[in-house]
């Protein structure tokens, strides 16, 4: 690495101390500063990540050794059953595992933590457009935390209808123990998360549209911002549908409207249903949100990975505009493929065929992205820092997760693999091996900006190595399980003689999952130790171009100690016309240089 520091602003003098007056509570708790809110989101979601991971271990324990006593926690939780997991508890485990991972971890860590932290810094704003709204969007997570948290402890013990909550199971209270109060709490919790995300996404869109620094044109935005912007649009248009669906399910459950249940339906001696409703209606509404939501859960990761890869390849991002268009393409197509979750649901098969075609098409923009990442590292000067390794692993793993999507998009094949572990393999490859790995990378990458100190790179690499190896040991064999036809959501798969021979493979997976969770301790320790004792970072430790690296680390209140003016895009690494191998967005061009001045005149209100 060359040792030139960020051109014009070398002094870090008043970095970090810039928080203006006000007590601890208003500065760190009810803060309206986007950076504090971002960090609040980060901590909350990491804690839930741990909870979700532990629930996953419960799932794995049962799949490998059904009905055997869980060590340590077994006695505490189910002394009555001799430490065994009951089938309804198992159902609850994976339902809540997925709910927490998706609604409390991946979505809020991407949009809430990184979106909040990075958007104003990367576009040159002093804060979000609506700081109070931003604060509210964090505090609306808490009722959700509280409600979902309580749902574990009320009678019935956690929702048990899968994270997809298909009626009638989720609607008829008698259908499952978890369909009493816990399902109601689940719905309320999801609604709160929805309101929070809604507030956030409106704020992000307004900020990105209106508060870019002079010269920061749309096509000079970093990919992270493009991804956050388009994700916010996805949220804004998809989430209201889930909210509406949630209300529909709530009224069906609470007052007995008839939207989702067919006439006179009786489940487990319940009162006959009144309506003439359609169970498939929920699936359509749910997936109309939740398919776009899977892209909500990957696009920001793709954006951040693009930034990291370009920075550590010391080379401009390959095909910036195609990258932008492909994100937009994924988002647009994402609204017309929801039916691929319903190929065998009883939906009209002709409709299934059209959804199949649109699903095939959506692989196309993803292909463009993958090839452009490959183009970026081709001919670069790759630096294998921890964030770079995580970013590269994202690309490598996303390919696996995406390609398994092609199997399922092929309708006849989906007949066989639908609701088997093939699907489980698919979405853990995109969600954990993809997004979560990108998130780890992003934490290592922006940690110096957030806390002013570096994380330990060697331990980071150990963490990367173990996580990378173990996650593949956990999730890759699931493809094979799926090929055998091993169904998901089974409390005791070995009830079927055919699946008994899969026992050893399942045990292997569980051992690896245990190790996978355990090795995260390295990350946790590194994280906390570095906050307090890491080496000081300086403004631009990675010699990156992005505007955020021109601000102090950590940035004070108002973010910048100068008026940001932008002269070029964020990926001008290795420009032969400058001495350093990077060319910050804020660095003025040499006098007389023609093309790179701020394009638009500053406008103020």
């Amino acid at each position, binding site marked *: 690495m060359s040792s030139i520091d960020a051109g014009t602003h070398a002094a870090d003098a008043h970095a970090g101390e810039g928080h203006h007056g006000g007590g601890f509570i208003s500065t760190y708790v009810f803060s309206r500063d986007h950076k504090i809110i971002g960090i609040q989101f980060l901590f909350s979601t990491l804690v839930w990540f741990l909870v979700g991971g532990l629930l996953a271990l419960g799932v794995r324990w049962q799949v490998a050794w059904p009905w055997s006593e869980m060590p340590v926690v077994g006695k505490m939780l189910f002394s009555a059953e001799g430490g065994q997991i009951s089938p309804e508890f198992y159902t609850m485990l994976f339902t809540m595992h997925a709910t927490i991972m998706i609604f409390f971890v991946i979505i809020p860590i991407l949009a809430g933590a990184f979106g909040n932290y990075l958007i104003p810094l990367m576009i040159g704003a002093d804060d979000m457009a609506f700081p109070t709204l931003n604060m509210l969007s964090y505090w609306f997570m808490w009722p959700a935390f509280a409600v979902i948290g309580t749902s574990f402890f009320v009678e019935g013990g956690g929702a048990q209808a899968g994270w997809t909550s298909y009626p009638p199971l989720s609607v008829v209270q008698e*259908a499952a123990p978890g369909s009493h109060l816990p399902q109601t709490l689940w719905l309320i919790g999801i609604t709160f998360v929805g309101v929070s995300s809604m507030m956030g996404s409106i704020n992000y869109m307004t900020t990105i549209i209106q508060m870019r620094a002079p010269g920061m044109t749309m096509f000079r935005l970093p990919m992270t911002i493009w991804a956050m912007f388009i994700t916010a649009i996805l949220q804004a248009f998809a989430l209201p549908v889930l909210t509406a669906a949630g209300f529909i399910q709530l009224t069906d459950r609470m007052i007995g409207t008839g939207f989702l249940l067919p006439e006179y339906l009786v489940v487990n001696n319940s009162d006959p249903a009144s309506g003439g409703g359609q169970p498939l209606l929920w699936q359509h509404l749910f997936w109309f949100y939740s398919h776009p939501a899977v892209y909500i859960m990957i696009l920001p990761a793709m954006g951040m990975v693009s930034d990291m890869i370009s920075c550590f390849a010391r080379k401009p991002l390959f095909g910036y505009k195609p990258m932008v268009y492909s994100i937009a393409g994924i988002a647009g197509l994402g609204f017309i493929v929801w039916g691929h979750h319903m190929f065998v649901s009883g939906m009209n098969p002709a409709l299934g065929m059209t959804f199949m075609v649109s699903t095939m098409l959506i692989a196309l923009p993803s292909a463009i992205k993958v090839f*452009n990442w490959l183009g970026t590292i081709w001919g670069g*000067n790759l630096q294998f820092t921890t964030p770079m390794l995580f970013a590269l692993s994202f690309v490598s793993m996303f390919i696996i997760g995406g390609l398994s999507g092609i199997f399922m998009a*092929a309708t006849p094949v989906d007949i066989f693999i639908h609701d088997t572990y093939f699907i489980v393999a698919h979405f853990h490859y995109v969600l954990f091996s993809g997004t979560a790995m990108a998130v780890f990378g992003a934490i290592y990458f922006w940690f110096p900006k957030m806390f002013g100190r570096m994380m330990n790179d060697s331990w980071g690499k150990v963490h990367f190595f173990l996580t990378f190896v173990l996650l593949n040991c956990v999730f890759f064999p699931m493809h094979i399980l799926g090929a055998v036809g091993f169904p998901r959501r089974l*409390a005791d798969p070995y009830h079927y003689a055919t699946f008994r021979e899969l026992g050893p493979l399942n045990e292997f997976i569980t051992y690896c999952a245990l190790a996978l969770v355990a090795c995260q301790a390295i990350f946790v320790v590194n994280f906390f130790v570095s906050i307090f004792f890491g080496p000081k970072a300086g403004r631009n430790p990675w010699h990156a171009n992005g505007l955020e690296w021109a601000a102090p680390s950590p940035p004070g209140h108002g973010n910048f100690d100068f008026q940001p003016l932008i002269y070029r895009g964020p990926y001008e*690494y290795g420009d032969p016309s400058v001495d350093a191998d990077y060319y910050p967005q804020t660095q003025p061009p040499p006098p007389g240089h023609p093309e790179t001045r701020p394009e638009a005149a500053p406008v103020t209100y």
Partner: protein
Amino acid sequence: MNKVWSLLFLAVPVFGVATFVAAPYFNHWLPRDVSEHGRMIDHLFMFILWLTGFVFVGTEVAIFWFMWRYNDRVNREPARFMHGSHSLELVWTILPAAILLFIAIYQMDAWAGSKMRRPDIAPTAEVTGRQFEWRLRYPGPDGVLDTADDIHHVNDLHLPVGEEVLLVVKSEDVLHSFFLPNLRIKQDVVPGMKQYVWFKANETGQFDIVCAELCGWGHYKMKGQVTLESREEFDAWLAQQYEQEQATLEQTTTDEG
């Protein structure tokens, strides 16, 4: 160290391919297919496996190679200062597009055969899912379902081989999914709806009926069995079931009377 990282990424395609190659030898593979149309589904699976396999190996090896060749220890030249390439973008847009469209069109016939072209025959049986069992109903001697002489049975489905079979599948309470792994059949059953599955089995034997849609705490034990047998055996079995059912019916009516 840089070499180690590159090799680690090379391990992905190596072990990935090895896993798929080894799995069939451990008998961890698609279950035995005993149906006519299953061949097409398996063929599509294998076709996509080969195709994505090539893409997988190609892209993963590319990652490895670029890591190996262009890391800052090895690559002494300055990074290529380039922002993209129009012709490359075109290539890697059009090529995958063509492949994907091909897959899309190639599979349509199999899908239509499995889900759209329902044969014009009378249903052999009606299968109704409920928490947590499969209720079965065969038409009695009159050959029509929904009449007084229907034959009832639970979890133990018998079907003739070597001929097209049509089943009505329904649900009485929540969602279930009627999954016959060995016949490559899966259909969610939805209360309030009536669905059909059809197939032609070509081997005799006993196979699992699996419930593949979460339906409550007992989802895991909602297991049934399908016995595929020759037409004669099937007819004999059905006749015997009919006798038995009539006998028990008489029993109960005399008991009541």
